[in-house]
């Protein structure tokens, strides 16, 4: 099943054309890593694929909705607790009960921090709060922008495991990362160097 199809997509940012003629077809069960140097347009591509950017984006993109898009900015309010942040998440896609959210937080080793303001947690823990959404969403297509940032070793292992479970359940993941490949046998690479406009 095709969860995302992009044909001849080109992206402009400001006056500059970043990428052109990107073709991508993501089937369920696939995990794609978007590669490329800083500034080549990885985040812009992900925003365009998520449907957030229309201005300056040409070509056709069809996507299976609802999708989950996790940006650099974590969409987490520092004044709210992890529990409240997830329960009242701005994407409005979390229908879980508080008990389910607590279980998800516990799986990310945030048990005991559910009711503390997120602002009092470390950067890595805040990242984990944002990632706890992965356990609570129904979305089949995940677009993750630098999901491994700020995570420690066990956090990275957890995320890798989470992505593997998601794709084996029929989901698909597109993520950007500068880390070496973690899903060697499963993973497909989208190297933006081929599409960059010099």
């Amino acid at each position, binding site marked *: 099943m095709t969860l995302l199809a992009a044909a001849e997509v080109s992206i402009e940012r400001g006056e500059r054309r970043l990428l052109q003629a990107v073709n991508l077809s993501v089937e369920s069960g696939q995990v794609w890593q978007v590669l490329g140097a800083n500034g080549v347009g990885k985040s812009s591509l992900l*925003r365009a694929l*998520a*449907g*957030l*950017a*229309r*201005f300056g984006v040409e070509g056709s993109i069809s996507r299976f*909705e*609802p*999708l989950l*898009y996790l*940006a*650099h*900015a*974590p*969409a*987490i*309010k520092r*004044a*709210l607790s992890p529990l*409240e*942040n997830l*329960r*009242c*998440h*701005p*994407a*409005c*896609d979390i*229908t879980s009960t508080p008990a389910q959210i607590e279980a998800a937080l516990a799986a990310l080793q945030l048990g005991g921090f559910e009711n503390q*303001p997120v602002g009092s947690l470390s950067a890595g823990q805040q990242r984990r709060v944002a990632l706890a959404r992965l*356990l609570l*969403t*129904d979305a*089949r297509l995940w677009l993750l922008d630098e999901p491994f940032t700020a995570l420690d070793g066990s956090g990275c292992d957890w995320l890798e495991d989470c992505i593997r*479970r*998601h794709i084996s*359940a*029929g*989901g698909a993941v597109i993520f950007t990362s500068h880390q070496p490949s973690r899903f060697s046998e499963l993973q497909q690479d989208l190297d933006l160097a081929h599409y960059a406009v010099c």
Partner: protein
Amino acid sequence: MLSADRPSLSLPTAFGRQFRRHGKALMASLADVANPLLFFFMVVTLFPLGLGPDPMQLASMAPGILWVVALLASLMVSARMFASDFEDGSLEQMALAPHPLSVLALGEVAAHWLATGCLLALVSPLFAMMLGLPSQGLGVLMVSLLLGSLCLTLIGAVGSALTVSIRRGGLLLSLLIIPLNVPVLIFGTAAVTEAVMGRDPSTWLALMGALAAGMLALAPLAVGAALRISLDS
């Protein structure tokens, strides 16, 4: 994770959750809530010092002073209405939600109004007494500020949504929304003046009510569209 086809949140629930999220964030930063009140208090304290302590003169100017200060306080807070959501990525997520962005944004605006405009209207009789506003004007002042601050917050929301992606958009925001605020100011001052004179202010209050109802219906659509444009640039 995938198998269960859970129903998505109903629209009122989604609205309520955005309201709670924003309301709790506002409550946590007391400074944001106290700022307009403090501003109001300080300006009202300064006027008698500048104009002289003649009670008759102060009382005759009080409706205008109170309304202008309320307008400025609203302008001050509405500039930042969507700023933190834009910076922390919440707006992007709201735009991806399966619900209309205008309804989710209205949840935020409602929380914002309760914590700023509504609160200011409720304590305004206290400030009015400091300026010696005759007592028959106090109730009308409060009602007119309740309706008026709702209008001002909704206008401010449109302006804030349009300028949220612009660095130092404050000046542009003021230029955009002050002209739109003028009718609200005129109706509000007129209502309070009429009441002070002992005449019936209901015409002016009805006009403000109509303005507020119209804006409540239309402004969210503009806010939703403006937020999408801001996210796209």
